[in-house]
């Protein structure tokens, strides 16, 4: 019987509960607004500063997208090269894993020194942090094909590039999308980190400003927009996934 209720109603209902609990906590503990504003003041702040927040949102969204697209554009081909060529694997893989042990966030100040205060260092951090999971998941996906499948393909006289395009790559798509989803949330972290370290634009800058002024309502309003942005980004990739691999077990609709 629960299944008959509109899923949108469910979502709205659960948010209503969250807001009610939030309001209750503020009221019960008599929280001062600079520590924890209730949902009311947050939405007032959101509405009042909407144009300002939105203009910063575009900036951050572009940074996230640029870092993410660059990461995907480099990571997927690199993973292919590593899987195809054992020589290049031995050459590339160890230094790549070694550099991954550096916390990428720690590189943000260095990038400011190298690239200045513009958009480049932010994109660079987003790129670096999103890069690794895509490489690893793509490698796993490309390697996980049944060896018998490759034998079958060879008995059909298929050249290696055709085996790659028609069997290995489609087979790896679910794993690649897994990597892209992880990378999408990491790209948000990377872009924000870049903005924290040195910026006069973006939601990260707005967060630092709001915190500095003890404008906690604006801080919360920015957080709301930021999580909405991250969520939209994640679902965009889910939609792409549904279009690309409707055949995969994760995408099938299950009868209840």
């Amino acid at each position: 019987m629960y299944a008959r209720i509109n899923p949108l109603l469910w979502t709205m209902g659960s948010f209503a509960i969250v807001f009610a609990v939030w309001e209750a906590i503020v009221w019960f503990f008599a929280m001062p607004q600079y520590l924890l504003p209730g949902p009311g003041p947050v939405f007032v702040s959101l509405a009042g500063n909407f144009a300002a927040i939105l203009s910063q949102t575009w900036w951050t969204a572009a940074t996230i997208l640029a870092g993410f697209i660059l990461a995907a554009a480099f990571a997927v081909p690199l993973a292919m090269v590593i899987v195809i060529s054992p020589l290049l694997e031995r050459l590339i893989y160890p230094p790549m894993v070694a550099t991954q042990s550096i916390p990428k966030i720690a590189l943000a100040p260095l990038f400011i020194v190298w690239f200045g205060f513009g958009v480049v260092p932010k994109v660079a951090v987003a790129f670096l942090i999103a890069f690794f999971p895509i490489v690893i998941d793509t490698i796993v996906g490309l390697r996980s094909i049944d060896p018998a499948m490759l034998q079958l393909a060879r008995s059909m006289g298929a050249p290696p590039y055709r085996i790659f395009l028609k069997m290995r790559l489609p087979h790896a798509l679910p794993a690649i999308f897994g990597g892209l989803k992880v990378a999408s949330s990491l790209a948000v972290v990377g872009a924000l980190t870049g903005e924290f370290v040195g910026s006069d634009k973006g939601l990260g800058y707005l967060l630092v400003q709001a915190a500095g002024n003890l404008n906690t309502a604006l801080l919360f309003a920015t957080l709301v927009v930021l999580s909405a942005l991250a969520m939209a980004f994640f679902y965009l990739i889910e939609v792409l996934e549904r279009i690309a691999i409707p055949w995969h077990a994760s995408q099938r609709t299950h009868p209840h």
Partner: protein
Amino acid sequence: MTGQSETGTGAPAMPAAKSAASRRRAAFIELDAVSKTFSTRDRSSTLAVDGVDLDIGASEFVSLLGPSGCGKSTLLSIIAGLIQPTSGEARIEGKPVLAPYTNTGIVFQSDLLLDWRTVLGNVLIQFEMRGLKTAPHREQARALIGSVGLADFERKYPWELSGGMRQRVAICRALIHDPPLLLMDEPFGALDALTRAQLQIDLQSIWQSTRKTVVFVTHSIEEAVFLSDRVIVMTPRPGRVRDILEIDLPRPRGLDVREHPAFTEAILHVNHLFQDMGVIRA
């Protein structure tokens, strides 16, 4: 039915029929002292197949029968040209097999269907992997899919099919380009008993109408005897030919062939061989 002891030490005596091979028409596949050694990780090596001599005639249905790990699948891969023997030679139509032999269809235990393709797409991949256009073969593929009882399923995806249906699609994929040779590596091993019996009957009728040469790897004695013209009984590792049984049962063989004296006699004979080799302990 006649038995022909090849390595013959201590096998239960069966009437020898040396003329069996010479009666057969020119060999389609020849294995000439084929051996295969695999090197393992700790630098030791395993002898998987040891000195196998075997001729398989055109249009013959031959089973390689033996316990797990006896090298029968290795032997099949050598015939397919997917692995090269350490010594000896495999020839098809007189020519040494030095690269994957492409004029064949292979069916493995796992159906190896591509999840992102429909039944029709999975059959047509045979042409795509060869760099050929699929459009001219579409109707022919539909007809073949229909002939194995899947006419209503050609637009379905593999995950919408049962195990037996999936393996039927795999068989269609192996047959669609009409190769003279069909190589099957325990193709029904993962199926339940009823589905398996049905697919054995269906495979027999496909073989009878197309007369392809079939090399069929199995560890089921009944399956080998039911399907084959000849059963090659192999020893446990290293795989050698222990005995060759001619199965002289009328075709088409139905379920009742299992009560035929020649059938039960063959089963009993192989059972004795396996007992003799320590594969089955009484």
